[in-house]
């Protein structure tokens, strides 16, 4: 079982990552600090359940995510589920950045998809993630940042794997739509790019 020194050292080394993760989830610095502190306290209490020390970071992130979701569930019970309606009214299900950017006739002379990604800054991606509805944001965090499997996400969120699959697909599509709109606003791409594919 990992000991106290291992735990304290790992927390110290990875605190920026935990905070960054919490900040993306809560979108609020004070709430992010509370989430990290509560997550780490919970992680210590559950340290005997950590089977593989190399999985410490995703393990703590998962505990934080569970804590965040649990708090949200409690809040939703009070507000009669109003918050999550936005997920099902989202129309971004099949949006693809690649399709917006790809220009087959330029195949041998240029690569607008790669140029787009090269121009994309971290802050652009963060802004796009923060603009996502909460369930999509959590799905992207768990799949693409924590690197959890669909089965692990299913267990954490207590929803079937099929729901996870669909939610991740929709979340990524919504993220790509946000990035596209952000890029249009910043002038990284022009409206004329649309429909060329």
């Amino acid at each position, binding site marked *: 079982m990992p000991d106290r020194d291992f735990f304290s050292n790992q927390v110290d080394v990875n605190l920026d990552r935990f905070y960054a993760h919490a900040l993306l989830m809560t979108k609020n610095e004070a709430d992010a*600090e509370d989430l990290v502190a509560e997550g780490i306290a919970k992680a210590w209490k559950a340290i005997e359940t950590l089977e593989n020390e190399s999985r410490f970071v995703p393990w703590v992130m998962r505990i934080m995510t569970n804590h965040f979701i649990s708090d949200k569930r409690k809040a939703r019970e009070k507000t009669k589920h109003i918050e999550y309606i936005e997920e099902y009214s989202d129309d971004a299900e099949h949006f693809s950045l690649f399709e917006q950017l790809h220009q087959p006739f330029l195949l041998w002379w240029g690569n607008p998809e790669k140029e787009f990604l090269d121009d994309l800054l971290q802050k652009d991606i963060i802004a796009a993630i923060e603009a996502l509805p909460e369930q999509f944001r959590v799905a992207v965090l768990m799949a693409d940042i924590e690197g959890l499997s669909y089965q692990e996400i299913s267990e954490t969120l207590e929803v079937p794997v099929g729901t996870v699959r669909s939610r991740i697909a929709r979340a990524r599509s919504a993220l790509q739509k946000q990035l596209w709109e952000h890029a249009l606003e910043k002038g990284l791409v022009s409206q004329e790019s649309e429909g060329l594919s």
Partner: protein
Amino acid sequence: MGDEIKKLECEQAITMILEYLDKELPDHDHEAMDVHLETCRSCFSRMEFEKMLKGKVNALQIKKAPDSLRDKIKKVTGKF
């Protein structure tokens, strides 16, 4: 041995790219994607784009933890 790898059309492959990158496809579909991507430049480009975008999201480093949080954590871990 003996199980033939199924042939994918681009339309099918496109719907499977993200799960392919997540390593969440059943083995036979993953193998079919491997074969398709070896021969289809368009789907390969699309897969590479999605892979790069996924990598960018994965590599996000947002803000450093503030000193106030480090102090709070020291208090929490000090109690262990």
